[in-house]
């Protein structure tokens, strides 16, 4: 990738120029600041000191157990965001991440409980199972869109509802749940075999999930696929202009199905950190809503692997430290939901404003530079 060509080097410098970074950061920073301000006002009007609340949250984040919790949650959040973002990059709105991960986690839990192979086979098997099921489930929406023209937004939302029924149908004693139910009221699958347990790193603040590395790997592959492969180029081209992509030879129908499947496959991984590192079984207490959270994080992180990492950490920070609020000082936990909501709304608006500003500014700059060039050559001609 190194090029001795000075022009290529200059272009690299151009790419990472300060203004671009400022423009890229402006929107999310603006959104977070605005949302902190809104929430501060809300807290103040309810008679609480907002600074005390922020203090509680930040203090918890400086402690090692808080940090481990934040990282572990961010792992799950990141996978959810990546799943949604993959579709978003080609303007494919996979709202069905929620349903895809639930069904995938259920099947992975079942396979994990039934099969007991050595860990180095067992874990890849479970990963593949989850991705396969997630991808298959998502492919329904992709195929419906391609062959029947059904909007993927509608079909994935409906598939989310169907996934609840699928889980309800299968997660009953004698099917996926053990026949002789334990004394507890909640129904869950048999615990997965010991060989299915994913490694974790013991720290002073508790166990750090090894799945973090899987999430990082997903991020790296995501970035590599999009920026360094033909497939990724086709995908981004389709996202930017479907008509131009079609004219350039992209088979848009094929791309829709593939992207939906890949998005669903990543979604299949969302439930695994919890399943293989914490609960070891799939049951009614499994955390819902991760798919929708992923959409918010993808929006905030602008569908970029790095941006989503920060966004996932931010949301995880809010959720993890927010749980301390009612315990220390009787602050309402709901303030976290308000904050997440305002961040997302603000960021959507801010991104659009910044995008338009950036585009316009570049056009002006190009115009000015060209005018300067033209003036320079004219001068030369005159003097010559």
């Amino acid at each position, binding site marked *: 990738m190194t090029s001795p060509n000075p022009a290529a080097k200059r272009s690299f410098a*151009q790419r990472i120029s300060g203004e671009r970074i400022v423009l890229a950061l402006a929107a999310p920073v603006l959104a977070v600041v605005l949302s902190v301000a809104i929430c501060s006002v809300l807290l103040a009007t309810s008679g609480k000191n907002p600074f005390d609340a922020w203090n509680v949250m930040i203090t918890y984040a400086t402690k090692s157990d808080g940090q481990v919790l934040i990282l572990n949650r961010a792992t799950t959040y990141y996978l959810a965001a990546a799943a949604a973002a993959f579709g978003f990059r080609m303007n494919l709105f996979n709202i069905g991440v929620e349903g895809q991960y639930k069904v995938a986690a259920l099947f992975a839990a079942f396979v994990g409980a039934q099969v007991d192979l050595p860990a180095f086979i067992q874990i890849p098997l479970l990963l593949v199972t989850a991705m396969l099921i997630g991808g298959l489930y998502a492919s329904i929406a992709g195929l419906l869109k391609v062959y029947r023209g059904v909007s993927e937004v509608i079909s994935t939302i409906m598939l989310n509802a169907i996934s609840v029924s699928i889980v309800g149908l299968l997660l009953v004693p004698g099917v996926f749940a053990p026949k002789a139910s334990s004394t507890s009221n909640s129904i869950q699958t048999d615990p997965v075999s010991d060989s299915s347990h994913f490694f974790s790193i013991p720290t002073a603040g508790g166990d750090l999930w090894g799945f973090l590395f899987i999430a990082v790997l997903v991020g790296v592959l995501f970035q590599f696929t999009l920026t360094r492969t033909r497939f990724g180029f086709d995908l981004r081209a389709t996202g930017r202009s479907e008509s*131009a992509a079609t004219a350039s*030879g992209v*088979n848009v129908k094929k791309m829709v199905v593939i992207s939906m499947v890949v998005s669903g496959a990543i979604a299949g991984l969302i439930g695994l950190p919890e399943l293989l590192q914490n609960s070891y079984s799939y049951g009614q207490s499994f955390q819902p809503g991760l798919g929708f959270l992923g959409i918010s994080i993808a929006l905030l992180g602008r569908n970029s692997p790095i941006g989503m990492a920060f966004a996932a950490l931010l949301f995880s920070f809010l959720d993890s430290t927010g749980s301390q609020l009612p315990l220390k000082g009787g602050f309402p936990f709901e303030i976290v939901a308000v904050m997440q909501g305002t961040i997302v709304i603000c960021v959507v608006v801010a991104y659009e404003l910044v995008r338009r500003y950036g585009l316009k500014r*570049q056009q002006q700059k190009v115009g000015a530079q060209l005018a300067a060039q033209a003036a320079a050559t004219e001068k030369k001609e005159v003097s010559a």
Partner: protein
Amino acid sequence: MANHDINLTVRTGTVHALMGENGAGKSTLMKILYGMQRPDEGTIAINGEQCEFHTPGDAIARGIGMVHQHFMLADNLTVLENVVLGGEKLHGIGARAKAKIKEISDQYGLGVRPDALVEDLGVADRQRVEILKVLYRGAKILILDEPTAVLVPQEVDALFDNLRELKSEGVTVIFISHKLHEVLAVADAISVIRRGTTVGDADPKAVTARQLAEMMVGAELPSPENRESTVTTTEMLRVEDLRIAKTDAEGIERVVLDDISLRIHKGEILGIAGVEGNGQAELVEAIMGMLPLDGGTVTLDGKDLSGTLTRARREAGIGYIPEDRHKHGLLLEAPLWENRILGHVTEEPNSSGPLLKPAAAREDTLRIVRDYDVRTPGIEVTAASLSGGNQQKLIIGREMSHQPKLLIAAHPTRGVDVGAQAQIWEHIRSAQREGLAVLLISADLDELIGLSDTIRVIYRGRLVADADPATVTAEDLGTAMTGAAAGHLESDPEAVAEAQAVAAEGTEAADQHPHTDTADKPQAGE
């Protein structure tokens, strides 16, 4: 600048036709009249009274109504609901409104049924609903934007009857079109727009189609030079019996392309002349593999491409300069080097195997920027920040970089300044000399005559006439484009000589012009 020095006077109770080629500035003018866009200078007066339109609402209040080329109706509502939508305060939404609609419909002989669902109506009926909609709002001046573009001949006649009815009831109609015989059939007065300005008025009783075409086309462009033929006998593209048909809601089959057969040899430029909307866009998309064929074959260099996808066709050696570069040719928000990859992602230097080679693509983009004189400060800027001419040069550079066997050039110089235009022509010519086959589609007849080795005329989806550019005038081509002439066209030799002399003068004038960028470039076709 889209419009300048436009002077237009329309008398009450007449059908006034506004003519001009695509991109001449008709639509901009209409947008100004309808308050969708504001003029930088100049005034509009209605019945001697000056007015200023800030929104379409202002124009409607002044009695101006517009029927757009693309209908703005809600399919799932009835005619009544569509008409009252947004005008609920006028006559309510119930029986009173229905009675009013019936009254207007009878008064002007529109034959509109208020209770019919719009989705059940055919194109002509929808258009009548659109007309009724603006009359319902009290319009006294009706602007029709290319109303006949979507109609079959019988429907056109019916529409003209409606227009005459409207006129006799005192309504003023401004009729935008570029179809000569239709304008002559219905208009009471004609104004011609070219390159954004009104070039003259004509009386339809006194003017001939030939004179009108002359006014529309003008003779101000640099154009044809006599040059050695580079046409070989090796066949490059063969299209046989191409057919595409669509069936609309009423079950009427609208044939988009029928019985199209053409051949292009190595080193040959085949020009397709035709009024826009007669199937040129579909022909291009059919050859590119973007539209499924109902019949026929496309063969490139002996290889049958009929069933293949667009990418395979591009890899087989078809280069494509699309008609609408923003829609089909560029990723506007992507940097130039990514736009260089677009359409050739599977080819060197952009990729090897499944992986992209961004560094190589960047370097090659720099080469294109240099060789094709793309004026840009760098290759990391977005395509949107370049001017139209520079965007087009980038596209041409890209398409030429992959040794195409066939180049499809749809309106290659549309919206491009004169300097870039000459460069683009020269690029096409020099590639032709090296054996490229070119399918050239253009609305600019001088461009067609100047570049092509053979010209075919497309009319209503069929190739109806052919001509040798050396022995045909733009006027005669224009006549064939309106369907009035068919077969082999051959103009009066004196007229051809005269036209060529005029064109040559134009070329010289352009050469001497101090601001063209071509001064230091080798001139075309020496």
